[in-house]
Every structure is written in C-alpha cells, then in structure tokens.
C-alpha cells in the first residue's frame, strides 16, 4: 500500500483529516480490503496501548451488523434545519419581543429625562406651601397639576403601606424644615 494512504489512515483514526478527504477514505476502506486491514491494525495498536490488552481484528464485525440490519426498514427522515439554527432563531425572536414589549411599556415614563424631576417638583411644592411670599410659588419645571398628583400619590402609597415604597414625601418635608 502507498505510504501516503497509510498516513491518511493514521490521520483518519485521530480525526485529523479534513471532512471531504475523510469521507472519501472511509469509502475506500469499505471497498478495499488492504486499506481495511490497515485500518484494523492501526486500531488494534491504539486499543493495546490504551488498555494494555490485545484483541484480534474482528474483520466480520461490520458485515455482521449489516446482516442483522438487512431486514430493518430503511431510515428516512425528512431534512430538517440544524437544531442550533432553530434554537438561535427562537432566542433572537424571544429577545426581540421582550425588547419591544419593554419599549412600549416604558414609553409613558420615559418623557422626563431629568431623573430628579419628581423630587425637585415636590421640594418646590413644599417650599411654596411653607413660604407664601415666595416669588416662585409654583414649580420651576413641569405642570403644577403634576406636582399635586405626585404628592397625593406618594402620600397615598405610604398610607396604604404598599410594600417597597418609602415615605418619600415625608423625607422631603423633613429636609425643607432644615
């Protein structure tokens, strides 16, 4: 047998041969007795090195399995997309849906860009209550009706004891006194 074929068989055993060459060589091994014997001997060497025990080449093994499967129906599975692609597609669709829902749901609350808007407004409101002479009785920014709403909301939330809500309006009042 040619040296390069033997070397290819050695690479094939170690999964180091490119796919196309590997498939071609496997087909050659199936049809050529000499290549098959070489394949078997190289495998025996590996087996003996790994296990420390010998084994005789079972040249009939593949044929016996083939014979046992002779009466089995031919497997036919319609081609399907790779599981990996399918999983990726589902994940992407799910992520996109969640992002869309999040954007739509948060839309009304994203208008005030200044994070301190609420607290500033409340502080202004309290100041106007404690100091009627103030030249700016109303808020610096926003609609005064919004202030009323926020104060009512905070007070109500605190009174009904909604879990996780701090008595925010009280803290503001405390600061205003100082």
């Amino acid at each position: 047998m040619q040296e390069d074929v033997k070397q290819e068989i050695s690479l094939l055993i170690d999964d180091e041969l490119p796919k196309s060459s590997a498939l071609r060589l496997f087909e050659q091994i199936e049809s050529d007795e000499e290549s098959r014997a070489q394949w078997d001997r190289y495998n025996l060497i590996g087996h003996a090195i790994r296990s420390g025990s010998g084994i005789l080449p079972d040249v009939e093994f593949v044929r016996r399995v083939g014979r046992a499967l002779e009466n089995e129906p031919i497997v036919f599975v319609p081609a399907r997309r790779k599981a990996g692609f399918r999983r990726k597609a589902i994940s992407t669709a799910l992520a996109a849906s969640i992002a869309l829902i999040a954007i739509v749901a948060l839309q009304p609350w994203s208008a005030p860009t200044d994070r301190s808007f609420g607290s500033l407004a409340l502080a202004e409101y309290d100041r106007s209550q404690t100091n009627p002479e103030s030249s700016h009785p109303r808020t610096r920014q926003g609609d005064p009706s919004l202030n009323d709403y926020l104060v009512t909301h905070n007070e109500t939330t605190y009174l009904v004891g909604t879990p996780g809500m701090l008595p925010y309006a009280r803290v503001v009042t405390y600061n205003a006194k100082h």
Partner: protein
Amino acid sequence: MGEQIDEELVRRVQGGDKKAFDILVRKYQYKIVQLISRYIKDSSEALDIAQETFIKAYRALPNFRGESAFYTWLYRIAINTAKNYIATRARHPAENEIDIDVAEQFETAPRLKDQETPEGVALTEELAWAIQVALAELPDELRTAISLREFDGMSYDDIAEAMNCPVGTVRSRIFRAREAIDKKLKTLLG
C-alpha cells in the same frame, strides 16, 4: 473535524443510505468494544453487546436530532445496553449458559472459535505483549507522540505545543510510531 464527518454520515443514513451506517460502525467499532469491555470482561460477550448497540442505534436514528454529538449519543446507548445485559444476566444466570456446540452454529461462531479458544487467547495475549514491547523500543520522540495521542487523547495541536514542535512533525511522528509497531503486528497476524 470528527463531529462534522459524523453529522454528514448521520444525514446520509437518515436520507436512506444504509452504507453510510457501515462507515459509522467501522469508525466506532473499536471504541465501543473498548467501552463495553469496562463493564463486561468476556471479549465475545463484549462484541455481542457492541453489535446490539449498533443495531439499537440504527433503529433509534430517526429520532436522533443532532442535539448532542453522535458519539456521545452512541456512547449512552452502549452503556445502557451493557448495564441492561448485566442486570438481565444477574436475574437469569442459567439462561445465558449456551452449549458450545449450539454456539458454534450461530453466525458469531467464527469469532468465538478465533478468540475464545486457547489458541485465540494465546494469540491475543501475544499481540498485546508484542505491541507493548514495540512501543517500549520506539525512539523517545515517537513513543511520547503516540502515547500523548492514545493514552491522553490529545489533539495534534496540543501535542505540538507539549512537544514544542510543528504539527507536521507530530503527524509524522505518530505515523512512524504506528508503522514501526505495525511491522511487528503484521508478522504475528501473518
């Protein structure tokens, strides 16, 4: 690389190509026999269980969706088949006693004759011994390369890094090691 080849072969079998399954059997025959031998010491029994493993795998292939590697899937079938065999044998020990005359009528008879006779056992032991001796006689760099591959299952890239040499050299060393051992093996096998 190996997984891509398996994927292609599985795809062919699932497309109705029975010959592609022969290639998968040839590719994994020794690994599966070796795996089963960890559970079942008798080599002829191990071969029978290996055969059963491949038959089960063929029957289950329509349900194989490629979510794990083919070998991982086959490995699980082999272990389950071996364990079931041990459990069945433990429950019905007498049923597995087959008269040698009957056994020889089975299609596995040539293998039983070859491997389980005193001559077969002696030859198997002689092969193992010859391979170990040939391995010990190899030059250091060849022995190290093939040992890292066969004992540790390292890839050629990892062996190249460990031995501080190009991958091409690893390829050549492993091949030369196999060839040197094979020469002694061929003499024994005739």
